[in-house]
């Protein structure tokens, strides 16, 4: 039986098929490793969760939104500071104690605000600092496809290896396919700029390690409650007190612009921040799933190394057989040739 239509008979030494079988087994091992890797790392479960996380973060990871969050914090800070200083002085003169006693909810908030502001601003700085990293990861193919990037070439390689173990004389024909497959594995990470983007993804994952935790989310939920109470005290107690003291809304606006601005923008701040807290909360499990995967910077090498092995084996297999063929041809020039594919 011949190797297939159009195949030319190859003169090989008797020991060459055995050698090629070994090469084919080696390729099979690489193929099997590629197939097994996504299963071993639970990629089929974790990668889609990563895709969900990336999609849910998308509306927030823009310069406009991130700048907006920082601005929200500045508006709150300015309003609190002005209420605590200018408004307190206007309502209670020099007596801060009297002001605090009259507005205990605000007083509690005022004490807690510096820590809240510091934590939230640091958090937003970290998130904003990772905007570029997020964009780099977003530019990669969807996380959902990642397991298949291993499984498909792995399965293909495995199939070719099985074929070549059974039919070592078909090596030459499949050698080109193997080289293409190997080169594709080597080139794919470069084509997708994985060498630059994957480390950025790693940086983002590291930065979010302390952000995407249940404990942190609950802390921010607590801050939200505190801020809502504090703003409520400004809106429903302090501003009415200013009005009772004889200030018209326009006067409050001109004399205490930061307080008025916080009041005016509070709903916008809630509109802005609440969905972000929701996205943070909803993605704790997704983040943890992704963080259980191998470090991002290793991913390009998960393609390159098998690619190098596959291409190398394909080339080596061809080279050694050619060399042996030459040796065999020299020593057995007048012997009866063996034809490829003859069973």
């Amino acid at each position, binding site marked *: 039986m011949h190797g297939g239509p159009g195949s030319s008979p190859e003169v090989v030494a008797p020991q060459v098929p055995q050698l090629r079988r070994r090469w084919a087994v080696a390729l099979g091992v690489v193929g099997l490793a590629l197939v097994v890797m996504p299963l071993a790392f639970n990629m089929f479960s974790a990668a889609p969760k990563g895709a969900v996380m990336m999609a849910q973060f998308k509306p927030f990871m823009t310069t406009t939104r991130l700048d907006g969050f920082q601005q929200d914090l500045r508006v709150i800070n300015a309003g609190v500071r002005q209420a605590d200083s200018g408004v307190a002085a206007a309502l209670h003169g020099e007596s801060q104690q009297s002001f605090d006693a009259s507005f205990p*909810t605000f007083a509690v908030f005022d004490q807690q605000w510096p820590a809240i502001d510091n934590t939230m601003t640091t958090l937003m700085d970290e998130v904003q600092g990772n905007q570029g990293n997020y964009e780099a990861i977003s530019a990669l193919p969807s996380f959902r496809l990642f397991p298949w990037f291993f499984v498909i070439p792995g399965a293909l390689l495995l199939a070719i290896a099985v074929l070549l173990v059974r039919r070592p004389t078909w090596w030459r024909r499949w050698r080109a396919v193997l080289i293409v497959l190997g080169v594709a594995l080597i080139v794919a990470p470069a084509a997708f700029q994985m060498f630059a983007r994957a480390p950025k993804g790693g940086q983002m994952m590291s930065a979010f390690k302390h952000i995407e935790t*249940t404990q942190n*989310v*609950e802390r921010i*939920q*607590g801050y*939200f*409650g505190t801020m*809502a*109470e504090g*703003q*409520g*005290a400004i*809106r*429903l107690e302090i501003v009415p007190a200013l009005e009772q003291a004889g200030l018209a809304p326009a006067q409050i606006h001109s004399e205490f612009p930061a307080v008025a601005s916080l009041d005016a923008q*509070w*709903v916008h701040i*809630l*509109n802005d921040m*609440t*969905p972000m*807290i*929701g996205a943070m*909360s*909803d993605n704790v499990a997704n983040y943890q799933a992704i963080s259980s995967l191998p470090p991002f910077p290793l991913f390009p090498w998960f393609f390159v190394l098998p690619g190098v092995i596959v291409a190398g084996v394909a080339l080596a297999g061809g080279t050694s057989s050619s060399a042996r063929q030459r040796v065999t041809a020299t020593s057995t020039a007048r012997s009866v040739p063996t034809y490829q594919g003859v069973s």
Partner: protein
Amino acid sequence: MKFRSVLVPLGVVVAAAASILSPQVASAASGQALVGTFKLNAGSCAGYSVGGTYFRMIFPNGNVKTGKFFDNPDSLCSNKSYTLAEPGADGGLVTGKYQPNPRPAFNAQGGSLANLIVQPQGFTAINFSIATNRIDPQTGKSVPAPQIINTKGKLSGQVEAWSAAWNKLYFNQGSPKPGGAHPGLTLPLSGTYNARTHAFVLTWTSQVVGGPFNGFTGYWHLTGTFVPSKGRG
């Protein structure tokens, strides 16, 4: 044949034992579904005493008795953890049918416009309200219309479709949750019913699953008078 002749009486014995050991199932089966409108009494505060229909929100890791409770600055009570409700256009909760969100469900500020069960109430400067929808807007799951059963003055049932809307977000606040689970502090609906006066008290808790208030638990306390649907006594 011998095997079968043993199996049949065994099954009868098991069924009898189950009915004895499972009084809840038996009583639910023997209860009467109250189909109509649970007309709500408006929430009210007098000093530290709170009555009528109200809602409280418990922080994650808290409990129903001691909280920690979320303080709503817009509450009319001195204890800001109570958010009072006022009856909506339908007078309250209607069982056996849905009272869905309007379209649009929110105003430009994110305040809920749903007003059939309760009137929208301020919650940290943005109105929130309640609706019951065939498809729960938070989870996207199909949920049954509310059902409440009276068993000798004790109320049970389900309000799986009970959904709060606030700040352009939805929070399922039903019990059980869509799909039938009771996560965290979610407790089944319970209450009392006076068949003579039709006065009722309904309470349940529902843990928020997902979103910015994930892990918070809503405590719902509804009081009022039940008005049966026409044709039902």
